[in-house]
């Protein structure tokens, strides 16, 4: 008894460490779910939403004033690009319409619509080791674990995807945790649009996305665009992941390792689209 009294602090210290290590072990293998802080969590999430929005508004105002001069030049450049893209679309539509099979697939993809929920980023992880963020939508909005998160723009007919952002890791009643494509724990099966070859890309601790092909003889070159392949049935097919930035040979020189530039700038995310299944 005297021993316990004398060493109470030390026992408490080591017991806490022991319990936390067990928790880390269990939650890392998925045997234990993250803590749901209930009302307190929702309260914190509300505060985060308020401060994130305030920060965003101030930063945007600051940059708006700073970039007013650039906007005119950018407007001219964008108008030129729109004309170029319209011309390209006309040309491609002409080619597609000459083949029945291509026409059917084009119509099918055009009419493809997603069920989605629009979320606002309320908190971001700014440690160097992970790439996560939290959105203000949760189970009450129909969001489930493993739902896909993309950046998109809303048009009159549907949403037009800009690129893959990540996946829902955990949900609470009113907010959800998202793992981005640059995070170590995010693995996505991809398809190279240039040659239809598939593989896996994965984020890393230093924030780069690297990947490899299933077929060791498959090739890739810088600029090839990668989309989700749908293999594994976690990610919906044809979501734009990004472009190949570099291709490097592995140490055994038999396979290629690709470095991918994500389609979305993860430092500038505000509104996100969560595709509900």
């Amino acid at each position: 008894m005297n021993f316990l009294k004398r060493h109470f602090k030390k026992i408490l210290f080591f017991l806490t460490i022991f319990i936390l290590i067990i928790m880390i072990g269990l939650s890392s293998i998925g045997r234990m779910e993250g803590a749901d802080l209930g009302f307190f969590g929702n309260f914190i999430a509300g505060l985060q939403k308020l401060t994130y929005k305030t920060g965003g508004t101030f930063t945007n105002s600051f940059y708006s004033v700073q970039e007013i001069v650039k906007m005119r030049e950018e407007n001219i450049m964008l108008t030129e690009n729109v004309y170029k893209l319209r011309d390209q679309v006309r040309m491609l539509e002409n080619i597609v319409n000459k083949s029945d099979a291509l026409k059917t697939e084009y119509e099918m993809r055009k009419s493809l619509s997603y069920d989605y929920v629009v979320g606002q980023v309320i908190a971001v992880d700014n440690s160097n080791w992970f790439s996560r963020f939290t959105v203000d939508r949760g189970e009450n909005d129909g969001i489930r674990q493993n739902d896909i998160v993309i950046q998109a723009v809303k048009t009159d007919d549907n949403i037009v995807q800009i690129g893959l952002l990540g996946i829902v890791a955990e949900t609470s009643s009113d907010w959800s945790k998202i793992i981005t494509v640059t995070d170590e724990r995010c693995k996505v099966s991809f398809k190279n649009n240039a040659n239809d070859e598939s593989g896996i890309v994965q984020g890393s601790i230093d924030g780069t996305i690297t990947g490899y092909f299933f077929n060791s003889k498959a090739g890739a070159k810088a600029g090839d665009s990668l989309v989700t392949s749908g293999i594994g049935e976690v990610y919906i097919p044809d979501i734009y992941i990004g472009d190949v930035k570099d291709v490097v040979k592995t140490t055994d020189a038999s396979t290629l390792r690709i470095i991918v530039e994500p389609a979305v700038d993860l430092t500038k995310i505000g509104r996100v689209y969560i595709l509900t299944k």
Partner: protein
Amino acid sequence: MIKGLNMKKYIFMSSLIIIGFVLQTSLMGFINLFNVIPNISLILLVIFAMLTDGVSGGTLGLLTGILYDAMIYDIFGLYALIYFLTGAVIGTISDEMLRENQLVYSLAAGLSTIVMHLLLYLILFFLRFRVQSAHGLLPSILVETILNAVLVVFVLRFFIYLSYRFNVKA
């Protein structure tokens, strides 16, 4: 009443930890220097642990870590362990240090930043993360260490000012 720390002070510090967490995860992302964000939560924890003892430092560290684990990450206990260790160790050895010397706070904040990243590296290594590319983070960690070591002095002064305003004995 907790030994060496009255309840008002404890609630005051806990509230600041929560506010620090909210600011760190939402507002601080917009205020980065050389693409590096100082760690306000760690700075606050270092100050509070320095001003109290091991038990209070550990408890406040646990609170900070649980907030991060529950609100941001999916591995529960990771940051709770790191912040608990940081708070408990600094709180325990703070008795031996000159609490009036601001340089000590800078040193503690700088060292805590390095130790925090070192612990993260070790834990992630055992969790089989691909930590080989972690050397790429060294420049950011170095800048963060310097930022935390400098910022701690200003946060400490602000805390003393707040303590005076709210009539809490710092």
